[in-house]
């Protein structure tokens, strides 16, 4: 029995170079702690990232790491899992990396359900290239490329993941280590692609863009902590979410003389697509922002199915004989006289 590893055992010797106050520090610490707590083996763990501030992440974790090219981490991670499915593979990406240049790869990694743990750092801005708006930026975001405000409608990472057929979708806040840790552990334990949207603050280019969700003063009213099998309650249990007749969510007061808890929607990680879409559509400040595991269902992973097929073919046909393969199809023999033998 080897000694249980600690967080520091997953800290590499590289100097961490994010801006002071960046949410990435908290995520890094939470991930390192999760690796230690859940018994990850450094030699069997790989972090694959794309390009962007968050994608420097692998350099700082003392495991195997691959800082790749913009948007392509899911494809590289897929090839890696097909080669060695026993590896624990994490994909580190940001809102631009995952949803703009790499949108296609994320979509397909999720629909195939490749056994990856994908952490999407969503700060709603391009940090590394100095503050241009991103595909998740709020409408009207002023940035170097949108000095008069952005006019395009933002994409919601949770909706994107659900629409792609993801089997595990969660949301957490960067600095909220208490809830981020268990979500990371749940993502790791999930067989298949897990996507965690981490609400992350960029203090330099987009400070406080998530204020409606993360501000401690409004946290009780603006955060909806999801628990499987429990009703959607918030504001210290004083409010809840109920479904109206036209299938939209509404906030109701809960308690004696008010709405009964039994009328509230009950959170189900394996609930209907309509329910998960409804959760994805709720955002602060109109609604409390859903946080926690939004969806988790079981479906065989792509790597598992693809490699099982290889095993099946091997079982049915036996290990291929290369000489026989070369000699397959129509062949003919030329005799010593240089003429074909009949």
């Amino acid at each position: 029995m080897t000694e249980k590893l600690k967080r520091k055992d997953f800290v590499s010797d590289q100097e961490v170079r994010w801006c002071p106050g960046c949410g990435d520090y908290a995520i890094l610490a939470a991930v390192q702690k999760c690796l230690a707590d859940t018994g990850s083996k450094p030699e069997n763990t790989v972090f694959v990232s794309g390009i962007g501030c968050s994608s420097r992440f692998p350099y700082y974790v003392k495991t195997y790491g691959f800082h790749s090219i913009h948007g392509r981490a899911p494809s590289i991670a897929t090839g890696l899992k097909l080669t060695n499915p026993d590896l624990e593979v994490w994909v580190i990406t940001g809102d631009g990396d995952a949803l703009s240049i790499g949108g296609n790869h994320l979509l397909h990694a999720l629909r195939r359900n490749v056994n990856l743990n994908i952490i999407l750092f969503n700060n709603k801005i391009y940090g590394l290239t100095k503050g241009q708006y991103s595909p998740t930026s709020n409408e009207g975001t002023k940035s170097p490329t949108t000095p008069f405000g952005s006019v395009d409608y933002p994409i919601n990472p949770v909706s994107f993941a659900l629409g792609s057929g993801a089997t595990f979708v969660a949301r957490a806040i960067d600095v909220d280590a208490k809830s981020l840790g268990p979500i990371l552990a749940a993502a790791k334990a999930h067989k298949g692609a897990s996507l965690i949207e981490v609400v992350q603050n960029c203090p330099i280019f987009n400070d406080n863009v998530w204020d409606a969700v993360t501000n401690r003063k409004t946290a009780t009213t603006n955060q909806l902590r999801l628990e499987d099998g429990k009703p959607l309650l918030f504001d210290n249990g004083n409010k809840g979410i109920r479904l109206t007749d036209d299938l939209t969510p509404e906030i109701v007061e809960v308690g004696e003389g008010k709405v009964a808890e039994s009328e509230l929607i009950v959170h189900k990680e394996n609930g209907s697509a309509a329910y998960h879409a409804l959760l994805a559509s709720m955002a602060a400040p109109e609604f409390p922002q859903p946080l926690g595991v939004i969806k988790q269902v079981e479906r065989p992973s792509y790597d598992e199915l693809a490699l099982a097929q290889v095993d099946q073919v091997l079982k049915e046909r036996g290990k291929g004989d290369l000489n026989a393969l070369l000699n397959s199809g129509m062949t003919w023999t030329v005799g010593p006289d240089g003429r074909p033998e009949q």
Partner: protein
Amino acid sequence: MESSTTGTSTKGGSGSPIPTPPGHQEVEEVVVRFAGDSGDGMQLTGTEFTKAAALAGNDISTFPDFPAEIRAPAGSIAGVSGFQLHFSSTDIHTPGDAPNVLVAMNPAALKANIDDLVVGGTCIINTGTFTKPNLAKAGYESNPLEEEALQKKYEVHPIDINKMVNAALEETELTSKEKGRCKNFFALGLMCWRYERDVEPQLANIRAKFKKKPHLGEANVLAFKAGFNYGLTAEVFQTTYEVKPAAFEPGLYRNITGNEAIALGIVAAGQLADCPVLFSGYPITPASTIFHYLSNYKNYGVTTFQAEDEIAGAGAAIGASYGGAIGVTASSGPGIALKGEAIGLAAMIEVPLVVLSIQRGGPSTGLPTKTEQSDLYQSLYGRNGECPIPIIAAKTPADAFYCAIEATRIATKYMTPVILLSDGYIANGAEPWKLPQVEDLTPFPVTHLKDANGWMPYKRDEETLARAWVAPGTKGMEHRVGGLEKDFLTGNVSYDADNHQKMCQVREDKVRGVANDYGDMDIEGEESGDVLIVGWGGTHGALRQAAGVLRGQGKNISHVQIRHVWPLNPKLGELMKNFKKVIVCELNMGQLRTIIRSEFLVDVEGYNKMQGKPFTVAEICNAVSELV
């Protein structure tokens, strides 16, 4: 009229119970082209006729030529599909400059191909399709069969194949549409009679081909026999022709196309390297069939993955190589363009990656089903930064097998991406291949380093300058790689000025060092003389044959076909000095010529063709003759 006669005409026996043709003639070689609508099954007819020639021991070379559209409007010129077969009793290298025999299944096929037929050549025409609408679709204002021009220039055999096939299939319960689809087998049967092929193997082939739909197989057998018997009984053909077997080295043979050969080469490479292969790609013409073949070889150590796009195709292959397998991806020009950034990443993190680039006409979407050699610059220069990688080029379909093995050997030995260049001509063309014994192929087992003692992520082998291959999962060797510049030894991110210079130099030196493994060049003719013809890739056959023709005329011409396009063989520089003139012939605007000029400071000339077609032997002979 066949191209050359070596035998004598003899009369057929008159006492036979069935009518026999009056003449039998022995000829050295024949070039036949089948042409029809893309739905007429011309590729199948050509392939089957090729098998018959191979079984008879002829040397063969084929050139399928089909439109980019799966089903262009029926009867249109754009929808014409062709298959040319050159079969011979002597050693041949090309599918032939021009057909001696044209089988035209409709007016558009006649219009599109008749000018290629040699004057005096035989033209077999399916008159059943020469209706007014079809003539109009082909752009004929009047029926060419009714005009003297055609008859004067060629030996024309108008046959209503539609009618004959319908009659032959009268008893079957096929729909008229299904009957119509059997007419290519009538053409096959007729040609098999004309060239004295054994019938039984053909019938067996047809039945095997349609074993899942035996009623169609039997219908095609009937159509084949109808064609064969038509030749036998109708007295319109005066002669049958015999092409004697060519002299081959003893051994076991099969026909092979370039894409089949590459797929088999990748399987063999994985076994020789003793390492699993992940092939990851995205469909594109003319590379897709490599992917199709490999997908069947899951019990041979090859896993395949259909990625969401070309970039992911390269990305997953890199992920596989990073994980300790051999990552392979295939594409053609537009797809290779998309993979460029990923190939650069593989060069930077120094893992093996085999990139199969099956060239087609460009730029942009270009001519997807036509051949060209215009992606040499793309292979050499299609990445950002100083990013040299080795490039090798297959010269024939069978050679593609050995090139796939060599590309993998270089990639794993030097820890680098390698591009293997092939083209549409090699990909789809077929030739007889003397099958190697696996035991005769040289193994190159790869090593994944597991001993951390004295290791650093970018520490290099002194001889090859390759870094060690360490796969994740190896304890005590956890390290980080990425696309940012690396420290010379630790592999950590480095922005140091001197380090960057040193790293660029070592990546360059490593790739240049690949030339240390090169053997002799593929030279035919003397190593000095008047003109050296230089080519690379799929032009080999035409160039070699042209050089032979010219030497036969007493000219001092030699030919070298370059397999190692990058880095070039240093011996090439020495060789070129021994000739008064050097001409680089290639199916582009002069890409290798420019590279040779810059590498060796030799004033080479160029002969270039951009028509989506391979060189003809005559074109090369003319171009080279002008230099002498």
